[in-house]
């Protein structure tokens, strides 16, 4: 796979280039936002792009549109707290990774977004669905890798734990409300997070 890493910290780029190289991936490293634009406009194709949130010259948020137009999945590296309000913006990266993280998390995130982008699978619970290749909830609102993982785990009746899941739960519920669906994610004592139909509708 061809991976683009846009990160101003050269040690980071170097360390993860070596690791991804060991995984048989080809890595292109750039250090600011304009270089990202130059690379994609020059016709170079990438299977995924990893962007530092605070990239110099053009920030990662502003690169989302040109990259999504070229169907390149994007992972944003952030040092800030991931909140539900951030995950409900109209334009989202395919995944967000919060620093500090383990190499396995990084490689796992890249593998997942690439796999999902080329997948024909659709996750469905009653009238709520996510087509993996679109990264959209019910074909309209963008979702992230974290929300897809949560949705898939609930469909498999797996128990998902940990505080890092909370913003994804809130974001998905907000999007379901926005789409006027009566399904909500609730915490059930015996089963953990589950999708349930709200009683008043």
């Amino acid at each position, binding site marked *: 796979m061809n991976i683009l890493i846009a990160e101003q910290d050269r040690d980071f780029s170097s360390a993860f280039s*070596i*690791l991804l190289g060991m995984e048989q991936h080809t890595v292109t490293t750039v250090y600011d936002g304009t270089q990202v634009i130059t690379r994609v406009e020059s016709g170079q194709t990438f299977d995924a792009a990893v962007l530092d949130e605070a990239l110099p010259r053009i920030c990662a948020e502003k690169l989302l549109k040109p990259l999504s137009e070229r169907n390149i999945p994007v992972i944003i590296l952030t*040092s800030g707290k991931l909140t539900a309000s951030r995950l409900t913006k109209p334009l989202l990266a395919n995944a967000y990774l919060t620093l500090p*993280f383990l190499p396995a998390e990084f490689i796992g995130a890249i593998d997942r977004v690439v796999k999902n982008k080329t997948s024909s699978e659709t996750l469905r619970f009653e009238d709520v669905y996510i087509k993996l290749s679109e990264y959209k909830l019910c074909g309209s609102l963008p979702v992230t890798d974290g929300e897809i993982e949560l949705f898939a785990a609930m469909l498999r009746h797996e128990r998902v734990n*940990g505080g890092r899941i909370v913003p994804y739960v809130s974001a998905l519920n907000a999007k379901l409300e926005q789409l006027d669906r009566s399904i909500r994610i609730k915490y059930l004592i015996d089963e*953990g997070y589950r999708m349930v139909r709200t009683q008043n509708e």
Partner: protein
Amino acid sequence: MNKARKKFVVLSELSVILLLIMLLATINIISFAQAAEEADMMTDRIAGMNGSLDTGGKMQQRMDMPNDIVQNPGGDQQAQLPKTDRSGKNFRFDNGRFIHFGPDSPEMDSSLRYFTYAIDKDGNVEKIDFRMSAITEEDAESWALSLQNSSTGWTNLSYRYRVYEINNKKYVTVIDQSRELWQCYRILIISVIGGAVFIIISFTVFLFLGRRLFKPVEDADRKQKQFIAKLENEFKMPLTVINADTETLERQGGANAQTKSIDKQVRRMTMLVKDLGALSLFDESDEKTRIDISDQMMAMIENSRSKFDEKNIKLSVDIEPGISAYMSDNAFKKVLNELIVNSLKFSVSEASFTLTKHKDRIKLIQTNDTGLPDGGCDQIFDRFTMLENAEGTSGAGLGLSNVKDIIRASDGRLSAAVKNGTMIISIFL
């Protein structure tokens, strides 16, 4: 407004109000006591003159007059003068009191409004003197009858009375002190208005002073938070890179003692960075809402139940349903998370979480059997403080200090003590 500054303003203002109330109350009590004493002097004087200041009054009773009263032979309309007038001075200070000044002034006699009635054993009422215009003689007679069994005091708001006996008759003298009392009420009104104005002025001054005094403290606090946030961010990237480099080294040459050690230390530092993050991210201005803490607590504990099982810790949970509190959602999650992490680290075989509500007080009790010696141990809420059982565990002693900050910001209180080897952390919201 910063919490410390608010506390300073409130406490200072309360102190001023308390002192002001004490001062004004003392002035007014003295003022009213003085008025009563002066009125008693007048009734005493009238009593000494057998119930009448009028020399043309009931002459048949004057044979019983006390020695310290001299009769003025000058005529019917002149007032009686006290013996102390013998010095010839109009105004002099004697025994802590101005003679011929205030109630002792001979002018008072002519301006005094009073009445005296005598009541014999058969209940016959005899008028001795009546110099009143505000009430009728019939009213005065009924007052006298109603007061005959008392001794001295106030009646009908501004009238001072004295009851005494002469020749087996009860004499009731009542004087009108409304003019004198009006002076006291004027002092009272001035005290109330002046006090209110002073409270407003002092509040403004304390607000101004508080801003000036606490500005350096608030600045330092803000800078400290900014510094910690920056420090946390600055650490995140190196930790991630070290993790990646260690992974590369392990893949190239296989894991060895050194790479394992690096990995372990990086994990420790990652935890420290996360704790620092919580410290800087916690903000008193976090939006507060009414949250169902029973539900949240149950969900978070159930989420962690498997971890307690893994460590063979018997977990007891007793949560009263439907308890809600007005606080930041994030802050409450942080508190519970720290309590759970703390319990997982330090419980030997048993831990419990209890949530109850009594009246308006929410009580959250968390216990861990630690085997520590008995006694209070509130120091666990201090930053970077770890007890002797923390040896070999990860962490930097920041978790419970975050809990303390959050609980205090929510106007709650907390304490920790060890009883029979069990650490009991009590939180009251």
